[in-house]
């Protein structure tokens, strides 16, 4: 193969690689609620209140039975730059749909041909959509959004779903025909009923004031915290926190990005404690407990222990008792000097001030 042919082959190979790259699927990204420049802010509320973060409301295993039983109304609020109360044709929807968490697709419920997208679950009843100047308020019940009616689902540990409420809106200047002029804004309810996997505790050192741990992090991707707890009584790996006898309040490990950390604790020196760890995910679900580690609480000492232990005479307190007469005399002399100086300055200032006042009065008479 001559050099010209080689060059052609290389060029073709590069072109093919670029073409493949262009056709390759986009890298996986979490499907966060969509936003549009026509919507300034979104909010989502549901009684009882749950953690709201970046357009998403989270509910976990603990909240699930209450939600299914009480079927609360989810209120989605979109604050927009468009005066929708005056020109309601500028908005569309409100729609809702759901995907399992981890599903990366983003959909627009209203298709270009005017039909609803096949993955869209439905549209919020028009009576439940209120337009207030630049605001679209939509109400949808928990049951309509999720389809859940049986509390048994809460204990099955299988459901991990994202439920989206989607608003379609366009700018004043648009013709309405160009699909690209429309924007979509969403809020999301995450219902996570799967516990994260437990971390592995590899080392624990307890002192009277803290517990330091080393651990292998939970492999579950949505874990947000690793927490340490301790109990005066043994427990088993896999136990749930609410079944462990006397678990002292779980506290998040400081240094969350690393695989070691410390929590504060109040422990009795020389006693034995059983230390465990749990992971907590975005929805507030706790993992089962790690295998416990038994630790004897180390009694610590400070500088005061060393001082008193060495026979130091100080007892503490704020008294001014003196025994050294030589220095005391000097102190009194210095104190007298300082007071005298301050008094002299005060007197001098008064004299100068009086003279100035007299002079000013004379000037005034002239």
């Amino acid at each position, binding site marked *: 193969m001559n050099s010209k042919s080689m060059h052609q082959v290389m060029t073709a190979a590069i072109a093919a690689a670029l073409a493949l790259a262009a056709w390759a699927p986009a890298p996986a990204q979490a499907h966060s609620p969509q936003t549009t420049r026509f919507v300034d802010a979104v909010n989502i509320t549901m009684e009882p209140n749950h953690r709201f973060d970046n357009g998403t409301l989270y509910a976990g295993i603990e909240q699930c039975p209450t939600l299914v039983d009480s079927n609360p109304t989810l209120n989605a609020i979109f604050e927009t730059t468009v005066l929708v109360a005056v020109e309601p044709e500028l908005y569309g929807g409100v729609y809702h749909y759901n995907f399992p968490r981890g599903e990366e697709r983003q959909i627009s419920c209203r298709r270009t041909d005017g039909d609803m997208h096949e993955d869209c679950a439905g549209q919020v009843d028009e009576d439940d959509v209120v337009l207030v100047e630049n605001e679209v308020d939509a109400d949808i019940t928990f049951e309509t959004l999720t389809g859940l009616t049986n509390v048994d689902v809460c204990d099955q540990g299988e459901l991990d779903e994202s439920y989206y409420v989607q608003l379609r809106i366009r700018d004043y200047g648009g013709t309405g025909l160009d699909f690209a002029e429309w924007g979509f804004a969403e809020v999301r309810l995450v219902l996570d009923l799967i516990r994260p996997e437990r971390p592995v505790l590899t080392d624990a050192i307890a002192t009277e004031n803290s517990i330091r741990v080393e651990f292998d992090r939970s492999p579950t991707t949505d874990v947000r915290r690793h927490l340490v707890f301790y109990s005066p009584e043994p427990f088993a790996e896999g136990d749930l926190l609410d079944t462990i006898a006397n678990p002292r309040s779980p506290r998040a490990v400081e240094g969350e990005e690393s695989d070691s950390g410390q929590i504060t604790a109040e422990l009795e020196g020389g006693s034995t404690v059983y230390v465990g760890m749990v992971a907590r995910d975005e929805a507030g679900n706790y993992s089962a407990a790690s295998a416990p580690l038994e630790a004897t609480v180390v009694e610590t000492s400070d*500088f005061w222990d*060393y001082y008193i*232990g060495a026979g*130091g005479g100080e007892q503490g307190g704020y008294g*001014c008792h003196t*025994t050294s007469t030589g220095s005391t005399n*000097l102190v009194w002399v*210095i104190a007298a000097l*300082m007071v005298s100086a301050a008094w002299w300055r005060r007197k001098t200032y008064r004299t100068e001030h009086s003279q100035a006042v007299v002079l000013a009065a004379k000037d005034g008479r002239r």
Partner: protein
Amino acid sequence: MRTTNRAILRRVAALSCAMAVMALTFADAEAGGDVRETRGMMEYKLGPYQPNVDSEFDNGPYEEFFGGSSMFYGEMAFDYHLWQGVGKLSLGIHGGYGRVSSVARDATTGAEVDSDETASFRIIPLRSSLVYRYDYSALHHGVPLVPVLKGGLNYNLWRVKNPGGDTATVGDTRGAGGQPGWHFTAGIHLHLDFIDPSSAAAFDMTWGIANSYLFFEHTWTRMLDEERIDLSADHWAIGLAFEF
């Protein structure tokens, strides 16, 4: 080696005499017309402070626990000029803060505990001083060095904190208190205005700072009650001073 109080007093007396002679030398000199009247000074300084706690022991607990580390000490001072002539005599109040810490120790073995816990010892000296600064030559003859003497009383608050962050206790004793003392300071201030007079003038116009100084000083601090924890120290500091 520890400097005795008597030796320090001798030094204080000698330095005071020297300053007095300087003052008398220029006693008849007239103040320059372009030097404006000032009211006082603010000082900010930093330096090490190692209290002489171990003076009452053969094997000192400070050395043993903190490994001989000095406290990191900072102090802020405000001086009000009482008299301005050949130099200035001022009344000053100072507030300082010094702290040293070490990893908590195993009470049984004495070994450092593998933990982020620290135990600390801190002091807050509150001082009042008579200050004499000979700045006549700096302001009238362009000599940029200003010797300064300070002497006065201090009340030294101190506290030992255990690894839990609370005040340390052993039996009925509590690791916190306060005790009076006295101090003497000798320092040399470098008048910064001569480096860039136009900036100095602008500083005065904008902020009302007539003179700025970079300084180094050495302080002898002594406690009055020898039966209590000894917070005495011979320590130096560097800082900035602003006259307004």
